[in-house]
């Protein structure tokens, strides 16, 4: 009799059918082809290998090298193949003069990475490699690889350096294609532009067994080539950088920044004392590292953006322009008579010139850098007004330069004084002190340089930067930076500019040591008292114009003495040199 097939029967047939298929393929894989797969499994034949890209190089504005890649012999260890841990560590440390405890630590930290090659030592001398190679067959866990390493052309603070990735960094970044052996930008441009410089990993599928037979799992796309990191073209001029580095007075600390006032591109970036970034590329020894850290002159400190200092008189044009903008004074207003100082309550504030300047209008007050004029002017403003206007001129606030860890500096507020000195703090005394760039105010040399460059650029403040363009594969990408307008009217700007010119070019101006015949030099001196030493910090900042080349500069010498006698002559030299090489 005909039996009706129900839905329930259909589903059961489908289920039977599905499981027969699955069973058949399990049978095929495990029983029929089992031996073949056992073989493949034992030999780890099918693997994906990562191909690391070449890091982008760094050049100056005329495509001269600043940071290149050079070949390096590196020693690796495979923890899973170590026969005798102590013997290996001893062999490595004696052959390559490394701390045995460091070698042992690397081996210990990576003991679970049995099948990975772990980087032990970078940048081994060729001769040492040859000697060690002869004994390598006693140590199957060791192998040499030729890889690329950074080579920095000169001592500086902006390129930064790369270094071996740390365990913490690796944990955070391994999803982004880093390996435990990766080098990664640690400071400076190397860190800031890490993502641009490093490039993109490539991959390669290995499917060839020991006898060289191709297993043919995959027919195509066996290689994804790595993409080289972008090359950075900086705004730095290597010639100027080298020259500026040479003219900085020996045995002094400080910095010199030179920038193109039209673009904000930095032409020279020198902080002294400096250090050679190449010391880090070979894996620095603990002793050397401790020596550098213990050096009282702090050679690692980038004084241009990581050091903050009282600006002294280079701050005065800001207060002058605030006075003019708020119409508290006009170009002809003469303030109180300078007789070498001024009383505020029961405290006498001295002018730097003991015999006094007499009564001055703003232009001459800047030219002679009269303190009393600015003491008096500051009484017309509240502390918050000063604070706000200072920051509107991008002083005591980050410039946003393309380097990591830029410091902000400091400008106190009323609340800060109350928090630190109690409710009855005399704000006036502090304010008067701030008027001449002394007291609690702290700035970075870069902020001062950017401010004076903006004065030279019709009040347009260009963001300071080091990267001019990056070259990726075949395309060039220009680094586009922001610009802002200083809170200053045209009339005020003209007046400030002319007083800066007179400071340098008229007799008895404080900056006459920077005067050069056919070049228009504008500048302001500063001699800032500080707690770091007896002598004042010596500042000279400004800008110079000749033909179409216009540069802003800041020369800062820690405890160098007077701005006019120490920093101004340095500025003169660098301007002379710059226009010499541009012609």
């Amino acid at each position, binding site marked *: 009799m005909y039996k009706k097939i*129900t*839905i*329930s029967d*259909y*589903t*059961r047939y*489908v*289920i*039977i059918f*599905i*499981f027969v*298929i*699955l*069973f058949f*393929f*399990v*049978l095929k*894989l*495990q*029983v029929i*082809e*089992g*031996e*073949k*797969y*056992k073989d*493949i*499994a*034992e030999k*780890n034949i*099918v*693997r*994906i290998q990562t191909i690391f890209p070449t890091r982008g190089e760094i050049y100056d504005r005329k495509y001269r090298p600043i940071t290149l890649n050079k070949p390096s012999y590196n020693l690796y260890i495979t923890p899973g193949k170590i026969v005798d841990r102590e013997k290996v560590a001893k062999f490595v440390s004696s052959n390559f003069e490394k701390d045995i405890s460091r070698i042992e630590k690397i081996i210990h930290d990576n*003991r*679970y990475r*049995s*099948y990975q090659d772990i980087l032990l030592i970078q940048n081994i001398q060729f001769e040492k490699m040859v000697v060690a190679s002869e004994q390598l067959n006693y140590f199957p866990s060791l192998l040499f690889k030729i890889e690329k390493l950074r080579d920095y052309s000169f001592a500086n603070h902006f390129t930064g350096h790369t270094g071996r990735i740390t365990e913490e960094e690796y944990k955070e970044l391994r999803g982004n294609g880093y390996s435990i052996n990766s080098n990664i930008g640690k400071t400076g441009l190397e860190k800031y532009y890490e993502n641009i410089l490093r490039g993109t990993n490539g*991959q390669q*599928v290995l499917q060839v067994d020991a006898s060289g037979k191709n297993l043919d*799992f*995959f*027919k*195509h*796309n*066996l290689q*994804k080539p790595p993409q080289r990191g972008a090359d950075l073209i900086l705004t730095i001029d290597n010639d100027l950088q080298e020259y500026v580095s040479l003219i900085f007075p020996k045995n002094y600390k400080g910095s010199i920044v030179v920038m193109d006032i039209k673009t904000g591109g930095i032409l020279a970036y020198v902080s002294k004392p400096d250090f050679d970034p190449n010391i880090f590329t070979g894996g620095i020894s603990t002793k050397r590292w401790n020596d550098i850290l213990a050096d009282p002159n702090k050679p690692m400190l980038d004084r241009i953006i990581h050091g903050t200092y009282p600006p002294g008189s280079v701050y005065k044009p800001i207060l002058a322009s605030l006075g003019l903008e708020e119409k508290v004074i006009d170009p002809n207003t003469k303030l109180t008579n300078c007789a070498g100082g001024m009383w505020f309550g029961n405290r006498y504030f001295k002018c730097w010139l003991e015999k006094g300047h007499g009564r001055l209008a703003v232009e001459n007050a800047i030219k002679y850098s009269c303190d009393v004029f600015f003491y008096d002017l500051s009484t017309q403003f509240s502390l918050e007004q000063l604070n706000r206007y200072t920051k509107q001129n991008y002083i005591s606030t980050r410039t946003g330069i393309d380097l990591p860890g830029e410091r902000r500096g400091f400008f106190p507020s009323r609340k800060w004084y109350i928090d630190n000195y109690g409710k009855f703090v005399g704000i006036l005394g502090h304010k008067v002190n701030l008027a001449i760039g002394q007291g609690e105010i702290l700035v970075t040399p870069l902020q001062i340089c950017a401010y004076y460059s903006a004065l030279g650029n019709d009040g347009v403040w260009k963001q300071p930067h080091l990267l001019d363009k990056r070259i990726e594969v075949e395309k060039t990408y220009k680094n586009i930076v922001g610009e802002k307008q200083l809170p200053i009217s045209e009339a005020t700007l003209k007046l400030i500019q002319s007083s800066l010119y007179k400071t340098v070019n008229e007799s008895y101006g404080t900056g006459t040591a920077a005067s050069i015949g056919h070049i228009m030099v504008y500048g302001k001196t500063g001699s800032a008292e500080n707690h770091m030493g007896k002598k004042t910090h010596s500042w000279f900042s400004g800008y110079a114009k000749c033909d179409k080349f216009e540069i802003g500069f800041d020369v800062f010498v820690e405890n160098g003495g007077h701005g006019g006698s120490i920093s101004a002559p340095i500025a003169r030299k660098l301007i002379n040199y710059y226009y010499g090489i541009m012609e």
Partner: protein
Amino acid sequence: MKRFDWTIFGLLVTLMVIGIVSIYTASSTRIADDFLFNNYYLKQFIWIIISMFILFLVIKIPNAVIDVSIFPVYIITTLLLIWVLFLPEIKGSHRWISLGLINFQPSEFAKLFTILTISKFISKPLLSDGQILLRAFTVTLVPIILVMLEPDLGTALTFLVILFSILLVSDLPKFYLILIVSPILSITFSFSIWIFIVYILLLTYLLYRSNLDKVIIGFVIALNTFIFFITPIFWNNLKDYQQNRILTFINPMRDPFGAGYQIIQSKIAIGSGGLLGKGFLMGTQKNMNFLPEHHTDFIFSVIGEEFGFFGCTFILLIYFLFLYKIAKSIRKIKWKEYRFVSVGILAYLTFQIFINIGMNLGIVPTTGIPLPFLSYGGSNLLINVTAIGFILKYLNERSIFA
């Protein structure tokens, strides 16, 4: 609990116990003679306890309460599917909602509640064929489109399987199913004219045998021929990467760095297990971490490597008995809506088991579909066990409707 189906329940518990053991070994790593263990197996155990609680809750809740809450919950899951699209990507897709300690995929919940909602809507009396089709399609297409946007092609296919299986057991004339399925097949076969001609001839024969009106037959054939001609045009208008994505889905070997690599490693792991396996915790391929996530989607490969052919056969057997028993029992559920639900659940579980094991064996495309009851994963386990709870509930209560 007189009519409680202890066989289905017993097989379910067996599967979950196997799951715990597999997760325990899959998430361990052997280093020399030491083992490192992740606590996934403990988390899974807690999820099993929670799921069991929900299972009995489902059995105890009165049908009236479930009946009124089905559609609102369906709406909520749909809203969650929309919300998840606005959350940040995790591993390249918007599938997960993270609640601190636990992450869950709203699409898991959507599957179950789509089954319940379709069944409820099309089991109403006196519906015309058109109404049934319209309701079933609307309810399914919303989650399908949202899931495609995540993008999660595997889950989208699961919804299609659910829809098709429920329509198959509904009162809808089978002709409509041919109408639905034939265009999909036409797209698939449109790459070879000869296969397409054979297919069209078969289709014509099938329609002819169904004693249909000649006009309708003519319409279906014309529609399919039209699709045959239009598919290549569509295909050529796709962007390269879109074509690549589809081709890689069909043939993972095109992508040796992603899906293809995983499948090869899974095949090597299973194949090298041989007849007897390498032993509990001793899988070398697993220990070298060739496969990521082997405690979730690729857990079958760990079982295959460590327990070998006998282990795999045992697991296939348990799954088979489990599904077969459910398929056999569905006949006893007389109430239309509940039978639809049960068939939907059965189809969805069968599909997932087939796709996951098939993927591990390298015979079906790679999708992010886990192995029901065995893979690690809270929301997935919870939904699968709850689904079985519904079947057990209906079997339990069948006397009322018989």
